[in-house]
């Protein structure tokens, strides 16, 4: 009990004084998760839409691969990316191992299938009659796609929240490809692991609280955006009604 209390005090102290190292680690965590989420949306949403709308040979197989990758254990991504990025590996000449970019690559591999899978699931759930109707009304291809995305926006934001959540919580791959290097690639999850190894449980508790708060704020914001236009129900934020 004493320890938990100490941890809470430490967290409060760090938050109030703005400990520069923890702030740097927190900003880096937010930056990496943000970039990865954005990239995986940019790639994942169009791919997911394409998969949902078009028939082509091997489509089912591709779906099975995507669905499996949605649960890809991060350490699997971590091992493979490490091997590729080694100096002696095929991409070694890029010199990316133990840089934030390496973490971004690993996280991207982990998050993108989730966005693809959930996007295509959302679009496939829409009423087929609606597709016919939009086309019958003479929508251009772009308008058609835009309308579809708009129709599924709640599910899409759900996909984004799932992707972000996965990335911000990830530790195994970040540790392997990033190396947990102080000031360089140390993020909140790997820093917490290290503090536990060092026996600084109060700091570890403080970091875990900061990570939880960070993750909550971002998710809260996404949720707010998601539910803003909905009105009614328990999520009525009063913007519309």
């Amino acid at each position, binding site marked *: 009990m004493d320890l938990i209390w100490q941890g809470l005090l430490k967290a409060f102290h760090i938050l109030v004084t703005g400990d520069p190292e923890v702030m740097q680690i927190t900003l880096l965590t937010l*930056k990496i998760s943000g970039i990865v*989420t954005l990239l995986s949306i940019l790639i994942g949403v169009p791919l997911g839409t394409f998969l949902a709308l078009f028939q082509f040979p091997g489509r089912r197989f591709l779906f099975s691969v995507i669905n499996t990758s949605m649960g890809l254990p991060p350490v699997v991504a971590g091992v493979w990316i490490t091997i590729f990025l080694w100096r002696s590996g095929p991409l070694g000449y890029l010199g990316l191992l133990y*840089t934030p970019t390496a973490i971004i690559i690993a996280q991207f591999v982990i998050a993108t299938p989730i966005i693809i899978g959930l996007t295509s699931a959302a679009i496939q759930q829409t009423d087929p009659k609606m597709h016919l109707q939009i086309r019958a009304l003479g929508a251009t291809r772009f308008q058609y796609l835009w309308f579809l995305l708009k129709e599924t926006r709640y599910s899409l934001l759900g996909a984004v929240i799932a992707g972000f959540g996965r990335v911000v919580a990830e530790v195994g791959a970040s540790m392997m490809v990033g190396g947990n290097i102080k000031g360089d690639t140390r993020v909140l999850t790997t820093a917490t692991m290290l503090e536990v*190894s060092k026996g600084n449980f109060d700091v570890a508790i403080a970091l875990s609280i900061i990570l939880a708060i960070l993750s909550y704020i971002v998710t809260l914001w996404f949720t707010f955006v998601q539910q803003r236009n909905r009105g009614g129900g328990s999520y009525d934020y009063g913007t519309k009604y």
Partner: protein
Amino acid sequence: MKQSLKRFRSLLVTTATMFALVGCGNSAAPAPQQSTPAAQPPTPSNPNIILATTTSTQDSGLLDVLIPEFEKKTGYHVKTVAVGTGQALAMGEKGEADVLLTHAPSSEKKLVDNQTVINYQLVAHNDFILVGPPSDPAKIKGMKTAVEAFKAIANSKSTFISRGDNSGTDKMEKSLWKTANIQPKGASWYQESGQGMGQTLNVTSDKGGYTLTDRATYLAQKKNLNLDILVEGEKSLLNIYHVMQVNPDKFPKVNKEGAKAFDDFMVAPDTQKMIGDFGKDKFGQALFFPDAGKKMEDLGK
């Protein structure tokens, strides 16, 4: 409908802006150590060095003291990858690291002999100790040798936690079992944590078991542990740290100058003094004993 479309668009824009802002927050590659312009450190052409080392140097806090000093002096940026000695040496063998700081002389010897590493220098030592619960079910307290104690632990089937990760400590432990002529692997009382020294001590304390640890990590964590030192002071339990450069002739991608600078730094008189003083203020005793220039055979005499 038009309105809601507009709203959705604005939503997308805010999302993008937020990420862009976060992205630009601390631009490009983070450059954490911008020292004052008065004392400009030299700027090496290839400023990044990868140091592969053992967890004990990081978990004890020693590197947090030494690395900033080295970076300030030389302008290099050290990327410390703290893993077990086994993995650190493997990284050296593949040319994935520039410089190594490890503590398994018998395994290191192979790399020295086949010229994977050069500039092999003795840095410091401390010692391994056998720790266990204060109740001491195997009654090993005060025994003269670790081998004797290991036999008692095996005979009483008391819980023993091994690192099991091929680290320097793990290698030492394995060699002690071998000397004791016991094959503990697979026995119900013998468990492997598969983690670094710090974490393994936590597990051992929690399970009320015995483990072999380096003194530095134990002292640094003592406040959280319900473990006492039970066997210590045997000469064969010395824990000896060496620094070495990965051979640039074998691996052209290695940062030759940076590795040499770090190698030299570790044995320089000022650094040696810092190593010797480290921990005295916090733990009342030194965690490492500086040994630069000595011979390994002369240690512990």
